[in-house]
């Protein structure tokens, strides 16, 4: 029994749970992002206890280094309006129902999983065989990635390219030329409206002048 691995698991899972609760309950999105960061770093620790060194590093680089930073960028871009002030949580009915669903599913799953007599998994227990030291490392995971799952790996690059192009297309807004065109169209419409209003005013004046006689 590895006391170090157990200790790391217990500490990391405490922090992960605390961070998850903080993410869900935080009033301001920035605090939620920081709690999410805490959860992600703790889950990297959990990956370490599972002998998945490369995935722990990827978790830190991709999630803590890219996704959370992207969240913080967007929160900073939106400014104080990114906090929705009143009525942040949904109504009592929705809240109770969703809490009940989540509690039932989670409680049932967690209870049944802990009760199951699963084998002991820890960081020092190596699989039988020579490649024990490579499990979860760069060599083991990389050779698996480039031999058996090379097609999904290449497809992931296509997916990321599409996501980049799509997010630029969604978030870019109007270019200056398009904005100018829209402004000109709006100005032309306003000018037309003003013309018509002037013509109508003239007509009314003529009618009233005529009626005066």
């Amino acid at each position, binding site marked *: 029994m590895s006391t170090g691995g157990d200790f790391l698991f217990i500490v990391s899972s405490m922090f992960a749970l605390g961070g998850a609760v903080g993410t869900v309950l935080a009033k301001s999105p920035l605090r939620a992002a920081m709690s999410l960061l805490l959860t992600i770093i703790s889950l990297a620790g959990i990956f370490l206890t599972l002998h998945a060194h490369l995935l722990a590093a990827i978790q830190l680089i991709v999630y803590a280094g890219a996704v959370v930073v*992207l969240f913080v960028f967007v929160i900073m871009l939106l400014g104080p309006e990114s906090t929705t002030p009143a009525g942040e949580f949904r109504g009592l009915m929705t809240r109770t129902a969703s809490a009940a669903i989540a509690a039932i599913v989670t409680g049932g799953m967690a209870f049944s999983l802990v009760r199951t007599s699963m084998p002991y998994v820890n960081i020092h227990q190596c699989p039988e065989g020579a490649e024990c030291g490579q499990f979860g490392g760069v060599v083991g995971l990389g050779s698996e990635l480039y031999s058996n799952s090379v097609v999904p790996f290449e497809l992931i690059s296509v997916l*990321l390219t599409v*996501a980049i192009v799509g997010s630029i297309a969604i978030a870019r807004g109007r270019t200056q030329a398009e904005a100018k065109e829209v402004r000109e169209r709006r100005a032309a419409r306003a000018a037309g409206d003003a013309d018509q209003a002037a013509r109508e005013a003239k007509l009314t004046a003529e009618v009233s002048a005529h009626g005066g006689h």
Partner: protein
Amino acid sequence: MGIEIGLGEYLALASVIFGIGAMGFLTRRNMLIQLMSIELMLNSVNVMLVAFNRYMPENHTGQIFAFFVIAVAAAEAAVGLAIVISLFRLKQTVETDKADALRH
């Protein structure tokens, strides 16, 4: 230490984090925090995949799956945040209830 940490504890942790994320997604109105809850759920699934891979260490299938989940989650976060920015430009808010153009 009295308790032994087995596969069950890892799966229980993952399912509890998944439940917290699901509850956050259902109860919050702020779209940014809903996206963060989705990230929580994806992360908990990653923990499950890696724990099962540790249980059967003959190959790396679970870790490869977790790798792909991380890549898809990164793409999803980028697109989701772009949608948040676009919604904010349209409605000056990030409340999901205000995005009701297709409702009536």
